[in-house]
């Protein structure tokens, strides 16, 4: 089931949350809406779900206009950042909720319903928790139950609003791999919202980078990372240094911290700089240099061993050689 958005605009008073967005989500893909807070990604997701109405524009599922279809009838699955499980119901009843509130003629008989709910709980590997209550579960378990609950109604599309946002780093990583595998099994068209670029790049088939209610770029994780369309995308997808590069617009080029070689001797195109700070985090050394020319800070990432063999201490003069510089043809925003 594909999703087509055309000319979606949404204002809150004077604030333009979404500014004329066109987007097509292909059948069966897992798409990430990535952007900083206030970029309109959550509003866009809620508009697809029917929880909010756009001021202009249309939402269609597989070519059929759904703009005026109530959220209740859109047959979408929605997973909330804070799970929104029903605290007074058991895990089993939470997952069964969507099946039990159907109009009587569409309701399943109890045996079929039980079988279906238990199958979903097995799918999220939590069938042994069926009789517990939500407050007895960990955050990661709750979010898996929320997912099972959303899948129970056999949604045409699955929408996830910062699904891992409330979890700690380790559970988050585990859960996003799990979500990727689950999507490969279930293959329901899915859109998830995140502000975490790593999460988007790791999980999604395609990434939509949003800023100020507009789409900056759409592409596969490799496309947006390797060929960012705008300075914003480049800066948002990782740490960036702006370095003086003759010939580039504003004489500035963008360089990732890991695309800089540190040399002990001067070389052509290398910039003299002094080391001001260094930390080693696991296998990586993060270094801070101050350029000799204008004292601006440059961040560099080196493998730990490479850093050791350079034998740098704070204050040492070294030479930074960018190995990959990105230039943008349009002027960079101030």
């Amino acid at each position, binding site marked *: 089931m594909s999703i087509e958005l055309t000319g979606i605009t949404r204002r809150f008073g004077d604030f333009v949350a979404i500014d004329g967005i066109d987007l097509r989500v292909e059948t069966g893909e897992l798409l990430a809406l990535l952007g900083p807070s206030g970029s309109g990604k959550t509003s866009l997701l809620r508009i697809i779900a029917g929880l909010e109405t756009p001021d202009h524009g249309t939402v269609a599922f597989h070519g059929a206009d759904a703009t005026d279809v109530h*959220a209740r009838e859109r047959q979408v699955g929605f997973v909330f950042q*804070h799970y929104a499980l029903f605290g007074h119901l058991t895990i089993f009843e939470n997952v069964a909720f969507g099946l039990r*509130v159907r109009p009587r003629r569409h309701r399943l008989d109890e045996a079929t319903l039980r079988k279906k709910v238990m199958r979903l709980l097995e799918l999220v590997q939590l069938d042994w928790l069926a009789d517990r209550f*939500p407050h007895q579960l960990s955050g990661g378990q709750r979010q898996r139950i929320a997912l099972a609950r959303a899948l129970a109604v056999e949604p045409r599309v699955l929408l996830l609003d910062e699904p891992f946002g409330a979890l700690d780093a380790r559970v988050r990583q585990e859960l996003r791999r799990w979500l990727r595998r689950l999507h490969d099994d279930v293959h329901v068209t899915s859109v998830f919202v995140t502000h975490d670029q790593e999460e988007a790049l790791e999980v999604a088939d395609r990434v939509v980078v949003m800023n100020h209610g507009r789409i900056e770029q759409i592409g596969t994780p490799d496309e947006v990372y390797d060929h960012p369309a705008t300075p914003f995308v480049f800066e948002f997808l990782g740490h960036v240094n702006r370095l003086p590069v003759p010939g580039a617009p504003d004489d500035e080029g963008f360089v990732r911290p890991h695309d800089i070689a540190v040399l002990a001797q001067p070389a052509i195109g290398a910039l003299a700089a002094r080391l001001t700070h260094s930390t080693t985090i696991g296998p990586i050394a993060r270094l801070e240099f101050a350029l000799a020319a204008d004292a601006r800070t440059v961040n560099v990432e080196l493998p730990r061993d490479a850093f050791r063999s350079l034998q740098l201490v704070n204050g040492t003069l070294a030479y930074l050689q960018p190995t990959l510089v990105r230039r943008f043809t349009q002027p960079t925003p101030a």
Partner: protein
Amino acid sequence: MSAATTIARFSPATNEARWVRMLLIGVALGFLTLFLFVPLAFVFHQALRKGVDVYLTAISDPDALSAVRMTLLAAAIAVPLNLVFGVAAAWAIAKFNFPGKSVLTTLIDLPFSVSPVIAGLIFVLLFGLQGWFGPWLREHDLKVIFAVPGIVLATIFVTFPFVARELIPLMQAQGTEQEEAATVLGASGWKTFWRVTLPNIKWGLLYGVILCNARAMGEFGAVAVVSGHIRGETNTMPLHIEILYNEYQFAAAFAVASLLALLALVTLALKFAVERRQRRVDDQDGRRSR
């Protein structure tokens, strides 16, 4: 909130000198005794002073029984109505945004800020013989003032804020995510209310109803203005007590008063039980959000 309770439970509340603690506890206990326990005990002492027979006669007097019936009737009508109004108002205010929301919130508080006597007078001015609707009511042979409908109206007015006031902060804190989840899962507004919203507010709601009921039964000022004190017809318990007292029938007055005091004790016990239950639910919610 649960963090605060944990601290209170496991660490000493104060490390002041012993005499300071004794003094503070003594003052608090003395105050409570003087203003709460002594009057309560006095009510029962006075009621039973002339023996159980007098007590039983006083509370089985037809006028007294009529006053009890009147009070129960007024509460039985006012409390369910305010339950419905309160839930509807709290639902609208907490879960939706609409123009005039702050005006509605202020209006709900109006009965708290207006003197009950004024509240009673409003109804006299509206429905009394000289009032706006007076002539129309007389033509149709309807009585509101100095009759049961007036008492019920006054009681509803005075107890209007209790349920809504209790629910609005609770529902605002709970937000709308669970309702949205239910909607997306295909539940109608009605089903969402019964299966999601109501279970989430039931303890707060019960608490509001208990408070509303206590006030409905104990209301004096507004009802005094509209009732006309017709014995055996439009007297409620608080009015009946006043009449007996003014007639120097102290034992009888205190006997009926003891019934009201008993009711207050029952209310307190219920309130205590509900609060404990609610705190347990809150504790679970606290764990959930962590």
